């Protein structure tokens, strides 16, 4: 028995099966990301005055990633349009571009994560805070046994609040130097990973989940790009529908980024 509406639209809904399926899936995705955005809002409004970070993320990298995803949305649409006019060569070219753009996005995101994971905030025993990127730990460095030392490229501030807003003129003009701290002077040392504070927690959660969606979408698009030729020869209409469905998912992921970028990078 042949499954109905795999290619042509069902008259009452105006949708073929796969399109109905992807929209139901995207509805659940809206709830997932909506919940996390709500968590972000609640964490932010609930933060102590002066303790919500500003300017911690690199706006240039965020802008480049926004451009990459915007371009990838266009190449996805063009790939679908190429299928519509039965031009498989153009489809291959446009989707190759989509894959490359997506991989570049993930590369930049990985670099940003790495930058956060080697960035340390060190609470000193004299009440001050050292903050900067790790240069090296001495071979005998052991925080528990208080041996050795750690060297950062950064600065020392009087109060943790001085590290929160990096967009102030004082923070912008702060001079960064090599700072070597003995383990005996360290009370607590922590990188800017997810457990550092609520901002980094929600930042890694939101962008990590988004990056996983990018990765998943890239795998699907790569599959159609590499192995879609067989279906294209036998059933081009159905293949075109599949490209549309993957394009809808890709556009959703891009839309999520359009909200993530200003919320995390600019505010």
């Amino acid at each position, binding site marked *: 028995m042949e499954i109905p509406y795999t290619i042509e639209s069902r008259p009452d809904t105006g949708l073929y099966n796969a399109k109905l399926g992807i929209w139901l899936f995207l509805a659940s995705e809206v709830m997932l990301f909506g919940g996390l955005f709500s968590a972000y809002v609640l964490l932010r409004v609930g933060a102590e005055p002066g303790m919500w970070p500003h300017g911690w993320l690199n706006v240039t990298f965020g802008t480049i990633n*926004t451009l990459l995803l915007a371009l990838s*949305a*266009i190449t996805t*649409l063009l790939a*679908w349009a190429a299928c519509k006019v039965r031009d498989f060569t153009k489809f291959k070219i446009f989707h190759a571009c989509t894959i490359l753009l997506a991989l570049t996005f993930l590369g930049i995101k990985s670099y940003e994560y790495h930058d956060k994971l080697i960035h340390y905030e060190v609470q000193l025993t004299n009440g001050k805070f050292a903050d900067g990127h790790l240069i090296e730990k001495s071979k005998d460095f052991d925080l528990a046994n208080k041996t050795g030392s750690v060297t950062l490229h950064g600065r020392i501030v009087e109060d943790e609040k001085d590290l929160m807003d990096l967009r102030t003129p004082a923070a912008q003009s702060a001079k960064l130097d090599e700072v070597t701290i003995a383990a005996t002077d360290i009370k607590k040392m922590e990188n800017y990973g997810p457990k550092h504070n609520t901002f980094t927690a929600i930042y890694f959660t939101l962008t990590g989940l988004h990056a996983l969606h990018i990765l998943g979408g890239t795998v699907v698009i790569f599959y159609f790009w590499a192995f879609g030729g067989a279906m294209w020869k036998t059933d081009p209409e159905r293949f075109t529908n599949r490209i*549309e469905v993957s394009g809808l998912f890709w*556009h959703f992921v891009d839309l999520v980024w*359009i909200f993530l970028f200003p919320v995390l990078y600019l505010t």
Partner: protein
Amino acid sequence: MSLKAFHLIFVTLLTALSFGCAAWAFQSGSLVWGAAGIAAGIFVIVYGVYFLKKLKNVSYL
């Protein structure tokens, strides 16, 4: 909703983001980034009109 309609929504939001970024940049005192944001917004609008003309025979459903 077809990919064409969803792309139109995407282009609309991207335009809003571009002008929003321009406003943010002007507020931060960066005239170059502000101008770049406005230019990007205008470019996206022009692209949106072009894409609608190009795909005028494709359904929104």
